[in-house]
């Protein structure tokens, strides 16, 4: 069964400098609080994997935690650019960022292959794109039909981190709504950390819910509100206004640093983070 630990202990125990780390959550259930804890603990030289490196990776990149980024779409959904990501790629600030970029279909196949303990995923994809020269794919021939297909190297993170709605005392995790690549991330990773909204005595079965047994997870941390500004279906909505506000915060290096200092570095945990947010935006 998974260890139930406070988030700061979970991050300290599982993530080392230089690790390959995947924080997933496809718009929904993004483990923002875990990202903040990586920043507080000053992790460096990380290879960060994520299909959609939105605000959570903008923050990690801007705070100098990342050496390399593996991704398929890097923007602020519905709003525009990720300015810290762009500043790192365009100007090497605060440090140069190596890129390995894919397509969504390629990343999805690579996660599924990782979870299945296969060396690569297979798809009809990337063909004819300039991406082929810039990423980790190869052409293979189907042994049955001779069709040429694309192989994409499996994703096998050192640590996979996702958020979910709830867990029980054995660390069994239940999540529902948009499930993204949450399950694949946990199962493809050597070590895994799941942050949850709440601990419950019993996981009542829910139609369509994904359950990941606690014995397949390394550690579980209870972090209510830990997905903000992303959301947890059934608990709170996506803070779309925050995504819009982030554009101006992330655009300017000084404003970004001062926001991160105030909301992340000077806060001890997710409760203090939310308290600071409430101060910043009076009702």
């Amino acid at each position: 069964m998974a260890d139930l630990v406070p988030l700061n202990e979970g991050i300290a125990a599982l993530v080392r400098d230089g690790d390959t780390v995947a924080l997933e959550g496809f718009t929904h259930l993004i483990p923002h609080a875990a990202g903040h804890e990586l920043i507080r603990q000053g992790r460096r030289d990380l290879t960060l994997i994520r299909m959609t490196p939105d605000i959570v990776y903008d923050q990690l990149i801007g705070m100098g935690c990342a050496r390399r980024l593996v991704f398929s779409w890097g923007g602020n959904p519905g709003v525009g650019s990720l300015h810290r990501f762009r500043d790192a790629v365009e100007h090497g600030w605060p440090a140069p960022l190596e890129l390995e970029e894919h397509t969504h279909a390629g990343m999805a196949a690579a996660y599924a292959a990782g979870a299945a303990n296969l060396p690569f995923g297979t798809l009809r994809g990337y063909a004819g794109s300039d991406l082929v020269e810039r990423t980790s794919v190869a052409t293979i021939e189907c042994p049955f039909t001779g069709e040429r297909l694309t192989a994409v190297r499996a994703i096998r993170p050192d640590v996979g981190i996702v958020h979910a709605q709830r867990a029980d005392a054995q660390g069994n995790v239940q999540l529902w709504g948009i499930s993204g690549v949450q399950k694949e991330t946990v199962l493809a990773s050597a070590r895994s950390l799941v942050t949850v909204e709440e601990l419950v005595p019993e996981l009542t079965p829910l139609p369509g819910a994904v359950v990941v047994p606690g014995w397949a997870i390394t550690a579980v941390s209870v972090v209510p509100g830990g997905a903000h500004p992303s959301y947890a279906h059934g608990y709170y909505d996506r803070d779309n206004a925050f995504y819009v506000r982030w554009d101006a915060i992330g655009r300017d290096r000084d404003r970004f640093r001062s926001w991160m200092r105030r909301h992340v570095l000077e806060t001890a945990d997710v409760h203090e983070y939310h308290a600071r947010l409430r101060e910043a935006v009076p009702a």
Partner: protein
Amino acid sequence: MSHTAAEMMAVAAARRLRNGTVCFVGIGLPSKAANLARRTHAPEAVLLYESGTIGAKPEHLPLSIGDGELAERADAVVSVPEIFGYWLQGGRVDVGFLGAAQIDRFGNLNSTVIGPYDTPRVRLPGAGGAPEIAACCRETIVMLHQTPRAFVSRLDFMTTVGFGDGPGSREALGFSGAGVTAVVTDLGVLEPDPESCELTLTELHPGASEDDAREATGWDLRVADGLRVGDPPTADELDVLRALRTIDDAASAE
């Protein structure tokens, strides 16, 4: 009723969706157009978002492709490997809607970088779902504002293949879909020539001229014989479209 160029784009794209069509929808203008179609002439259009929501029926336009709004009233919610594997690559989608930063005369798209890849002037978001959407959907509709910076003779980076180098390229790459069937801009509609695959101006929006379209295009734009002028948005289309703006606009206003 007067209307904006962006509204005309959404209306022109929406009109291309037939009732019952299965659409893979990106956020922004494509989502606006697909939801407009669903609320006017195509109530049975099926909307798929890359977040895994199948048959989404959002009350308000979502800001992202993964707002809870989409999952709540969907027919099914599946994982990301499933939406791309079983549904898109499985050949279940009729129409893919795409945007981009640059397009060339063969409908190839760049959403990766402006400038050299290793030292870009502008780093764009990247491929997302576009390459496989353009490869696997039965047809692709592109929505893009027409300017010389966007309609270029040579892409800085080929993210997504439309017709490649021209006739035969898609077949050689093993793509199942027909490729780009329409590029809907703020000035009109471009469609591929059936023989050369080159994008050709076939329709102008009311008020736009052939010269406007030529000046907004970075290559020598071909114009179809029998160039049409499209109908302006109807009062009903505009009412529905304006009622659709909401979540994103409300958020922007804060």
